[in-house]
């Protein structure tokens, strides 16, 4: 298929402007880095001492303080496993992603 001129092809463009500008309050173009993952972290809530090491170490900053533990936003978690490695009480375990029978708690899938 031939390339079209994005300036003269209405509706064909991802970007409404000449440069790569997007409105962050609406449709900021971003990467859902969670799709890169092969393993995902599961928090064993009973073992969590709320020390916050996982929150401090997470390179993608997808771990944030919750009520009793630190939930992980799997939309952006790349599955690097640093949180599981650093957790002093082994309250985070890495499991193969995409496995329906992994026993994940309902709020951590």
């Amino acid at each position, binding site marked *: 298929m031939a390339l079209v*001129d994005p*300036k003269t092809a209405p509706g064909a463009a991802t970007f409404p402007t*000449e440069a*790569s*500008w*997007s409105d962050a309050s609406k449709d900021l173009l971003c990467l859902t880095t969670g799709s890169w993952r092969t393993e995902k972290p599961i928090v064993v809530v009973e073992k969590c001492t709320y020390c916050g090491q996982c929150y401090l170490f997470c390179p993608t900053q997808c771990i944030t303080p919750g009520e009793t533990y630190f939930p992980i936003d799997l939309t952006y978690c790349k599955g690097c496993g640093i949180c599981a490695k650093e957790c002093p009480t082994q309250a985070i375990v890495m499991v193969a992603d995409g496995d329906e029978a992994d026993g994940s708690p309902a709020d951590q899938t």
Partner: protein
Amino acid sequence: MEAQRTKPDPTPEQRRVITGNAAAAHAVRLCRPGVIATYPITPQSEVIETLENFHVNGTLDCEMIAVEGENSAQNIVCAAATAGERVFTATSSYGLVFMYDAMLQTAGYRAPVVMVNVNREPPGIHAVCSGQQDMIATRDSGWLQVIAETGQEIMDLVIMAYRLAEDDDIQLPIMVNYDGYYLSYLAEAISIPSQQAVDDFLAPLCAQPARPALRPGTGMGAGAHGLGTGFVELRRKHLLAMERAKDKFDEVDALFAADFGRTYGGQIECYRTDDAELVLVTSGSAVGTARTVIDAQRDAGIKVGLVKLRMFRPFPRQRLAAVLHGRQAIGVLDRSVAFGWDCGPIYQEIRALTPEIGIVPLLGYIDGLANMDIPKPHIETIVTDLAAAARGESRPPVSWLVAGA
């Protein structure tokens, strides 16, 4: 672009003997950038020193940001340009390649940064010497690249660079190149335009639709990931903008001529080419020497002309093909090399126009590396070669003219 600043205008048009570096600094002052970030490097340092003087004595009202290196300088002016400011930076050689990743970012963001690059040999074989190799090392960075021949042209080209880069239809960074030492440090009588004339010349930029701008408190993404079709769309837009920049540069040159009375021909200048059987193509300060030789050869009855390459990126394919078509022999003089091609880069790219130009002797010459002079006898040798090749005599496709070679 924000409205022009309202500093008093103390500067009428004047004619002064100044260096090429000072000419660049005066031009920048007259264009009233809001942010300047530059790191010193030979032979560019005089540009930033002169601008610092203007800043201290109150004739230049801007943010002058001291940085620890050229990489930071480029990142700062890129960010300031995406915030909507008019910006300036300058560098050379090692400094240019130290900001290479940031240059790619600036181009991808379509940030209209104006940068002076004072040509000097880049790292490898250490040489604090003139040569266009630094510019060539960044030719695929997505920047516009233009080349000046004289101190006056440095002045005028910097002013034209703002008009071109910030044009709503272009929105690209531009690198204004001139030969280190030969142009940076030599002084000549240069006309410095009045503030009012430059304000008037750049005023149409303020009347354009406002570009999007990063502002505190607003959620705007610049250079956000455009994967897949988004990425392809941005690449395609970038290439199309570079194609448009060629005619736009001709247009800006004509507008400049109307305002200031000086014209340079836009992408290329054709000198005594109308009935020329032989044509020499070159760029930068070597053009002045070539012009003198062409005049002498014309007096001797040789029908030889000169094409001065003023725009290297985008490459003026159409105008070069038009002027080079139908000649009996063509010579190209390069002040740098194309690794892997055993020739000079301008020669290499003109060779790519062979289908448009036709098959005639096309001879490349490498000269003037590392501050080696390009004297008149070297240009005379080229003309003699071209005449012989046009008669059917064999000549090597590429020759090195440096003394002793």
